[in-house]
């Protein structure tokens, strides 16, 4: 499943399935080539965190295959994890720990842990090393987790909602750090978020997940070119044409919806089209009406 010729995949997920109560992750497949940032988007509960937890062996998969750095993720778990930096959507350190305690606790697990880099990152994020975790705001805790994830110079960053709780300035700082991180072409980032504006700045690839199924996985530009927002008067479309629209919505003066460009020729030429964005795509798919592929 190579997206870019001659570029190895740093992360590859093939036909991954997992049932968790009433929720099911169903035949999830995507690949992140080395040297790129992939945005992993979808509404809350779409399956983003479940997919990431499966990658990290926090959940056991029912079916499928996960390869990281070309290696099966369970067979080479320790080696793979030493090369990964992870930020989950909520902190997972002891509340009473200071930032120096966190370094003592985790640094020995990484052969490439760099104390001065850690201190620089703490300073960059305005975090006091002797402050306890419980004294930090949610945003500061997220910054701390980003600092820990970056200190051992990982080859792959897996970020699960890293911007939740961060203000616009901090989010911008994080994007800048990711840009710097990606100057090394051997690295990769999987960035799960529902704040899609962050991705417009940094992502190369987008994978859209909805109700446990992958709807799209392609380059950012391909995805934005694939879908258009269409608008028009109430009586402009036939029932059949309406069914082609994703997230079809009627209001007092007309309708709007999302359409796959390949289907655009089936609509009247008088219809108004506008470029889409990630939010629009995500919301429309969540509203329903997607075409089964």
């Amino acid at each position, binding site marked *: 499943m190579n997206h870019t010729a001659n570029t190895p995949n740093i992360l590859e997920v093939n036909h991954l399935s997992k049932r968790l109560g009433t929720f099911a992750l169903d035949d999830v497949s995507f690949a992140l080539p080395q040297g790129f940032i992939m945005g992993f988007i979808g509404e809350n509960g779409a399956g983003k965190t479940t997919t990431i937890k499966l990658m990290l*062996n*926090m959940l056991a998969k029912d079916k499928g295959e996960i390869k990281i750095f070309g290696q099966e993720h369970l067979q080479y778990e320790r080696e793979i994890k030493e090369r990964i930096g992870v930020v989950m959507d909520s*902190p997972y350190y002891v509340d009473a720990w200071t930032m120096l305690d966190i370094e003592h606790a985790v640094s*020995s697990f990484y052969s490439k842990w760099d104390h001065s880099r850690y201190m620089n990152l703490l300073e960059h994020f305005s975090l006091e090393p002797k402050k306890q975790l419980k004294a930090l705001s949610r945003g500061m805790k997220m910054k701390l987790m980003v600092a820990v994830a970056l200190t051992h110079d990982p080859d792959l960053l897996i970020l699960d909602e890293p911007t939740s709780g961060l203000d616009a300035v901090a989010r911008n700082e994080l994007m800048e750090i990711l840009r710097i991180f990606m100057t090394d072409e051997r690295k990769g980032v999987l960035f799960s978020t529902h704040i899609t504006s962050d991705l417009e700045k940094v992502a190369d690839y987008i994978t859209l997940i909805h109700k446990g199924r992958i709807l799209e996985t392609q380059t950012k530009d391909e995805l934005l070119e694939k879908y258009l927002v269409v608008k028009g008067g109430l009586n402009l479309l036939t029932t059949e044409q309406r069914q082609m629209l994703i997230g079809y919505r009627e209001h007092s003066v007309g309708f709007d919806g999302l359409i796959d460009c390949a289907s655009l020729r089936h609509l009247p030429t008088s219809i108004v089209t506008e470029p889409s964005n990630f939010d629009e795509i995500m919301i429309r798919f969540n509203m329903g009406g997607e075409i089964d592929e």
Partner: protein
Amino acid sequence: MIRNLFIFIKLDFITLKQNWKLYLVTPFLAFAVSCFFKDELAAIYFCLYMTMYTSTQLFSISEKNKLDTLYLTLSLSRQDVVIGRYLFILCTQIIASIALTILASILQTAGITAFGDNTFITQLIYGLFIISIFSAIQIPLYFKRGVNKSKLIIIILYMLPVVLFLLSSSQGLAIINRIIDSITNNSTLLIVPIIGEFILLGISCAVSCRLYRSKNI
């Protein structure tokens, strides 16, 4: 893998950092109490109880702070986490035993308590064996269900010997006492609880590995 296990043990000690002061004064406190009441066994059982409390506390802190998530972001497999945790528990038992032995020697030299060498070692070994029985049951439960969800079962587990003791007739107790005395007075049988502890913890560790492997984090 061995390196990671040692690092994991270190991580467990750091996790309990907030309780260190309590653990440091425990042996002294236990001996103060045993000197006061002229009951030397109290020191041993108090310290060994503290090692069990330590493991419960460790699981409790881990659960409260979602440390299972941290462990699986580090270069560790689930098996490393389980084996590392059992090694940590063995470490606490070794530390408690060393601390008790040193303090017993000091107090004996000073003539404060009347431990005989054999009595002390025998009681310590059997004490370690008894807590290993409890640990072997409670640790797999903690790995599978967590401390909060296991509370009721653990309370029953702890209360069971007390209830059985209270329900036993005086004749029954006399028989149990005779059995215990005959076992503890025979120094050649000391190897049995030592081997027994390792077998119990080994089986418990294997069960925990199996339970933790399927746990959703």
